[in-house]
Every structure is written in structure tokens, then in C-alpha cells.
């Protein structure tokens, strides 16, 4: 398959079932909501060492938020419910509770619940107050700028993490431009995030390492500098490869996001230095979800 001069590899992205949740952060201004979100969802690029993968899903107008203030929604993904609960509480406690004027709310329902303000309320040292509004419990925790308002809990979602595609280009600059276009397209898809810095990752990994302590190591088959030393996947004209990793609430969201991202890259085409699109997988044995690039782009 070739689209606009870009070859689409006959391969698939291998993704995993993950536990996720959505939270809404509001503040007096969009800027302060973003400060809180950037802190809370920072250092959340990969479950390998961050505990979770997280990112801003979209901005919310005052009409869309529970308290009528500007805000944004964010998604967090982890490999287990226990780890997700730990990361959620830690990140909201350290990054949202601490941020001036913010409040935090559940962004999704779910059969199972994760604590949001349930334990953070003890920061109030006995002065915290509970309010039940429309059947949902909120905690008012006194802080130095007034009160931090946190909903008691948020829903647990069964989701998909680790969808991906690789952009192979004639130069790093061209690969970056294409990935920026892809990330811009993916950010318009509700229910999906690209958790790496700017939505793009350069250090694609393979499972295992020559060093026993490491669970993952560099994806040598796609490293241009190793073409002379390993069984490379790269043709001579490819000078740089960048990867876009996507986490999504549902399988359908993942497909929409991958299609949007890859279509944006193909839209730039060979003229913009894009050579191929490929994807990362582990032989199909590790992940429950397989996303065939050609099927998604068909």
C-alpha cells in the first residue's frame, strides 16, 4: 500500500489492555488549570518507569465543567488498578491540590471507583467538609487560597494502551514536522492521548536487553546508526525514525486516533520526505490488541 508516495508496511501495532480513568481539572483561568495538568500529567510517558501514562485529553469551556469554570480533561493509564489508584492519588495530591484555584472532578463513570478526594481530604486535618450534590460526594479541603474541591472518586475504565506507528523519513527535521502534524490530528480525537513529550518518542524500544536488569532496550532494528551492525529495518534513504504512541479509552478510539495520525503524515507525503509508516509489535504474543496499519488506513 502506498499513499501519497508513503509506503505503508504490512504490519501491525501491538497494544495492551490497561486500566484508565478520566479526571476534570478546573481553575479560575485556563492557564492555571493547564499548570496543574502539566504537573500532574508530566513524567507520565511510559508505564515502564513512570507508573502510568497520562496526558491532557482536551480543553473544556466553563459550560462543560461541573463548577462552571474553565478546565480540561485528562486521561491516566496504568497496568493495574492498584497502580492507577496510587498514581492518581499521588499526582492529584501533589500537583492539583497544590495548584492555586483548582478543583478536581471525576470525568467518567465506571462500575469500579478509584479514590480521588477520598483520602486527600485528610489534608484538611479535621476541617474538611463533605457535600453530596446530585448524589455525588465532594470534599471541601481548606487551603490557603480558600478551598480545594475534590470529588470523592472517579470511575475505572478498561482501556487500551500502547497503540503506535513509526514515521520513517529522509531527515529528522522532516520526521518531526510530520509527527507534529500527526499529534495535532490525534489531539482532536476524544478518548485518546499521546503521552510522550510533544506526543512523539524517539527512543522506541524492544523487549529485553543484553543487561539482565533492563526489561527493555533500544529498538536497534530502527536505529539508523546501527544499520551496519544489526539486522536493520531501514532502507538507505531513511535518516530518522520517530514513533507516536497512543493510549485510548476504547478500541474504537484507538482506531480513530491512529487513522487520524497516520492520515496526517500521509497527507504530507513523499514530497515532505516521508518514506514509510511502520509499527512496533512483539510478534503478537504480548498484547491483546493488534492494529494493522493497512486495515486502519483502508
Amino acid at each position, binding site marked *: 500500500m502506498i499513499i501519497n508516495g508513503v509506503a505503508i508496511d504490512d504490519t501491525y501495532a501491538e497494544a495492551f489492555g490497561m486500566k484508565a480513568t478520566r479526571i476534570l481539572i*478546573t481553575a479560575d483561568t485556563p492557564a492555571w488549570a493547564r499548570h496543574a495538568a502539566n504537573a500532574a500529567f508530566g513524567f507520565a510517558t511510559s508505564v515502564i518507569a513512570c507508573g502510568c501514562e497520562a496526558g491532557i485529553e482536551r480543553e473544556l469551556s466553563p459550560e462543560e465543567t*461541573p*463548577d*462552571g*469554570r474553565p478546565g480540561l480533561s485528562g486521561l491516566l493509564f496504568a497496568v493495574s488498578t492498584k497502580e492507577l489508584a496510587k498514581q492518581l492519588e499521588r499526582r492529584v495530591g501533589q500537583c492539583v491540590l497544590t495548584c492555586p*484555584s483548582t*478543583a478536581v472532578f471525576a470525568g467518567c463513570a465506571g462500575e469500579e471507583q478509584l479514590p480521588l478526594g477520598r483520602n486527600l481530604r485528610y489534608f484538611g486535618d*479535621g*476541617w474538611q*467538609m*463533605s*457535600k*453530596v*450534590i*446530585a448524589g455525588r460526594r*465532594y470534599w*471541601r479541603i481548606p487551603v490557603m*487560597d*480558600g*478551598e480545594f*474541591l475534590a470529588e470523592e472518586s472517579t470511575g475505572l475504565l478498561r482501556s487500551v494502551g500502547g497503540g503506535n506507528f513509526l514515521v520513517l523519513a529522509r531527515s529528522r527535521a522532516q520526521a518531526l514536522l510530520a509527527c507534529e502534524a500527526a499529534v495535532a490530528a490525534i489531539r482532536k480525537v476524544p478518548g485518546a492521548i499521546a503521552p510522550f513529550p510533544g506526543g512523539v518518542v524517539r527512543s522506541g524500544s524492544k523487549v529485553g536487553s543484553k543487561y539482565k536488569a533492563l526489561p527493555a532496550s533500544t529498538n536497534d532494528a530502527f536505529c539508523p546508526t546501527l544499520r551496519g551492525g544489526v539486522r536493520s529495518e531501514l532502507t538507505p534513504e531513511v535518516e530518522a525514525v520517530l514513533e507516536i504512541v497512543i493510549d485510548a479509552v476504547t478500541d474504537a478510539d484507538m482506531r480513530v486516533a491512529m487513522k487520524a495520525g497516520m492520515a496526517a503524515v500521509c497527507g504530507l507525503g513523499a514530497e515532505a520526505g516521508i518514506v514509510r509508516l511502520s509499527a512496533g509489535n512483539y510478534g503478537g504474543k504480548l498484547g491483546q490488541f493488534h492494529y494493522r496499519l493497512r486495515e486502519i488506513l483502508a
Partner: protein
Amino acid sequence: MTATTLTLRAGIAGTVDLGGVLPETLVRADAGRLVVGLDGRPVELAELFTLRPGDADSLVVEAEGVRLDNVGRAMTAGRLRLEGHAGDYAGEAMRGGELLIAGDAGDFAACAMRAGLLRIDGRAGDWLAAARTGERAGMAGGVVAVAGGVGDRLGDRMRRGLVLVRGRAGRACGARMLAGTLAVAGGCDDLAGFGLRRGSLVLGVAPELGATFNEAGVADLPWLGLLRRYADAILPGAVFAGTRARRWQGDLAQGGKGEVLVPACG
């Protein structure tokens, strides 16, 4: 889709005890034989009302000229609308559903209420959402919305839930309250929050407070935005606009964990 309708027969006077007359009980074939009270003596429902069958989840009671006590008592589901005034104990021990009173309600409405919505288009009497005599706690959940004013002892020993009042409350509003929220747009008479343990009095007009309330100044409280958005969908105007409020903590004789909030500019 039509509601089941009960219409009072001509010539009936006195106090009617409507306890047990609920949307779900009137769909039974023998609903007319349901025993209710007239001035304290048992009578069959059909002696007092004509019954027009309809949906199981909706009941309209049309009654003028009598006092109707216990309207919607222990209601669990459905919708009951009273075209007229209610006597005492309207919505007592409600567990769900919607009770709509097109006129006024007497004393002790919503006592022991646990869930559901009680809407009163007129005014309510004393002890709304309060504890019944001898009970430790009053209303413990649900929402009460009163378009007019209310009498004394609103929310006395109230445990949980939300009461919205667009008019003014009488004396001892929120007295001995354990928790929950009272929003009274028109303010209230003296002894507000007397013995308040926890809970919030959200008043549109600053009250006269006793010496056991300490002023905590003005703060911006985002939960007021949340509360107003919810309350406006039920009874617009019951919660004041804006999130900046002047706050008093009290009753300090009871731990000081309750609060009285009024608009910052008020």
C-alpha cells in the same frame, strides 16, 4: 400516558389522613377499598375520592377544602402531585420519587426524609426537614425545594440532604443541625444556626448570629458554583450568585465545624 387521579367528592370536610396513598398503591384493583383516615376514624378511600385509573408511576390528587395530612408519606418512587394545600407531615420518611405540592405545606414536612424530591410551590410551616419529636436526627437525604417562605426550626437536627428556600425562613433556622445544606435566599429570623454542629447555611441575607459564631472573612468557594448550578435546575434563585462568600464558623459551643455563608457583597 395519563396520571392516576384522585378527586375529592363534594361535601367532604375535615382532616384526611392520606398515609399509604401512593402511585404504586392505587393501581391495585381494590384501590378504592384502601383505608385512609377522616378526622381520626378509618374510612375507605372510595368514600372520599373518585378514582380515575392511569399510570402506575404518576398520581394526581385534587382536593380543596380539607386538610390532607401525611401526603406522600414513605413514598419510594413515582410522582405524586397534590393540586391544593397539604397538611402536616407531607413527604415524611420519603425514600424516593417526586412529591409536588401546588400549594402550601403544614408543619413537619420532609421529616425523616431519606431520598427523593419534595417540591412545595407555596410556603412550608415549622419544622421542615427537622427531627420528629423524640428522634435524634431530621432529614437524612434528598432534596426539598420551597418556592415561598418557611416557618421556624427549618432543618432542626437535620442529618444530610439539601433544602432550597426562595423565600425567608423563621426563627432558629438550621438549629442543632448535624450536617447537610440549607440554602435560603430570603435570609432568616434570629437564632440561626443555634447549636449547629456541621453543615452549611447558605443565606442570601446576613443573619443575626449569636456570640458562638466567629467571622472567618471572605473566601472564594468553588463548591458554591457547583451547588448553584444544581440548585438552579430545581429552584432558580435559591442559591445566591457568585462564589465569593462571607463565612462564619460555628456553633463554637458545638465544635465550630458548621458554617454560615452569605454573599461577599451582602
